């Protein structure tokens, strides 16, 4: 059996642990630079604040309903997450950390266990030790565990946050309840395709002909169908696969028009991507650069453009990635536009181990050594101590985090005080 454990409104719950006055109050957490809503407490969901709501548009709704607004505090969320994952791994040796607030557990050889009791124990321990409420869905495949978890979330009173699909009757009932667009892995396109042939829920989907599913939705769709039928096809991915694309994108607090300023941002994003590449021992072979005007200012001239630049060799050097990103920027930059957002995405990622030499042009070997030294110094002295010359024009770019809570678990001078 598989269990999917999902922290309820994770970021909002983290804030509540250290600030219990927020219990039962509406909370929203904003993305980097306080751009849009990325986490909501149930109370905020009830107010009709959607996921991804731009903060400036909802300012008056926040005020009117006394919504507590927070900037995202990733050092805190990351620490609480790692505590939870460690607790979870004490319950089974097979665990897949699926995201910051989700994990799959595999219960193999647990035949003599009452899984419902066991899950209640997990739930209780995580809550007691960390203060975070979790929902646990269990099924004979990962996809069914996901479905069971959806049921926990939808019916918290009836399930108390634990639901186990352990009979065919329960499975059929769950699949008939689950709308096709909410099925894990179906996606927008497929659900549209399926609705056209009157497949409304997960049960309808499992009633389709295997060969039809395979033809229209490839083997991935067929695997999903088998999973929903109760057969376990997808196993745990215990070793996290390396990322296939790495992105650093940001909205700016104020709009930028000057090339020099955009160039600085792009260079900084490029360096950030290079650092992420090195952290997973990878290189990239192409770079996507984009710039956008403010889409919410409808009256202003709208401009959005992106470009892919191919690097002649695979690289993870700050200098090279920044250089090619700027070459791309020069091609798409248009003056007179008020830019609000920009980003760098690196693609064509390959591992250090299978580094492909090219015939004519290769990276200077000096770079590898230099980057190693830079990484070493930054690890010792702190991030962003060494920069390229085109980065950071007198530190104008502090991240906007106006409503940041404290780092209660990672900084000694920010811990809670008790009277």
């Amino acid at each position: 059996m598989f269990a999917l454990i999902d922290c309820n409104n994770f970021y909002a719950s983290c804030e509540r642990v250290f600030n219990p006055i927020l219990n039962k109050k509406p909370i929203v957490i904003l993305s980097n630079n306080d751009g849009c809503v990325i986490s909501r407490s149930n109370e905020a969901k009830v107010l009709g604040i959607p996921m991804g709501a731009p903060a400036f548009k909802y300012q008056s709704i926040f005020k009117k309903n006394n919504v507590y607004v927070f900037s995202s505090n990733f050092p805190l969320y990351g620490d609480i997450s790692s505590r939870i994952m460690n607790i979870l791994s004490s319950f089974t040796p097979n665990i897949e950390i699926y995201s910051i607030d989700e994990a799959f557990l595999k219960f193999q050889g647990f035949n003599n266990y009452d899984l419902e009791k066991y899950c209640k124990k997990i739930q209780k321990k995580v809550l007691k030790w960390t203060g975070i409420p979790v929902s646990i869905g269990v099924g004979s495949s990962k996809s069914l565990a996901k479905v069971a978890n959806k049921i926990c979330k939808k019916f918290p009173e009836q399930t108390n946050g634990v639901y186990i699909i352990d009979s065919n009757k329960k499975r059929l009932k769950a699949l008939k309840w689950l709308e096709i667009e909410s099925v894990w892995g179906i996606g927008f396109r497929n659900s549209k395709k399926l609705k056209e042939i009157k497949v409304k829920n997960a049960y309808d989907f499992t009633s389709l002909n295997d060969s039809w599913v395979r033809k229209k939705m490839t083997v991935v769709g067929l695997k999903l169908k088998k999973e929903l039928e109760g057969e376990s096809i997808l196993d745990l991915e215990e070793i996290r696969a390396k990322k296939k694309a790495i992105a650093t994108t940001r909205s700016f607090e104020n709009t930028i028009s000057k090339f020099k300023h955009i160039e600085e941002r792009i260079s900084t994003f490029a360096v950030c991507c290079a650092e992420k590449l090195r952290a997973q021992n990878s290189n990239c072979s192409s770079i996507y650069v984009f710039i956008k005007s403010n889409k919410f200012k409808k009256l202003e001239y709208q401009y959005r453009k992106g470009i892919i630049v191919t690097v002649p060799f695979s690289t993870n050097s700050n200098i090279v990635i920044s250089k090619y990103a700027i070459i791309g920027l020069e091609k798409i930059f248009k003056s007179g536009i008020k830019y609000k957002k920009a980003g760098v995405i690196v693609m064509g990622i390959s591992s250090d181990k299978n580094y492909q030499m090219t015939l004519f042009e290769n990276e200077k070997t000096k770079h590898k050594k230099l980057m190693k030294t830079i990484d070493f110094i930054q690890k010792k002295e702190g991030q962003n101590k060494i920069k390229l010359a085109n980065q950071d024009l007198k530190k104008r770019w502090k991240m906007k985090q106006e409503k940041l809570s404290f780092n209660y678990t990672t900084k000694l001078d920010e811990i809670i005080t008790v009277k």
Partner: protein
Amino acid sequence: MKKEKLSFLIPKKENNLGQWLIDQGISAGFPSPADDFKEVRISLDKELVKNEEATFYARVSGDSMQGAGLENGDLLIIDRSIEPSNNKIAVCFIDGEFTVKRIKIESKKLYLIPENKKYSPIEINEENELIIWGIVTYVIKKL
């Protein structure tokens, strides 16, 4: 008589291969009698934090627990995994703020007892919203 040639064996200097890595160093003297009894140095982290996942920290503000040795500015180590019980010192959240007090259970009633005569005990009744947040296991003070 033919002179016998003497050939000298000269150690190769330039070749670094095949050198032995010896951790201890080769000493000509008597080996340290302590080597067989090596232990790990005392770690306060390990001693004070029994359950890493459930341990949090707090700073004391005020003097309500002076009698128990908790003074203004002291650092508290809190273990959330410990079950609250009579006489334990706990960090609680009551009526909108964090407080540290001793738990007292008397004839089915719950009290939070300060350890300073200037303050009076708090009786918990149904109107109070009380969260027993964690149990204090150590207090660290700078002298």
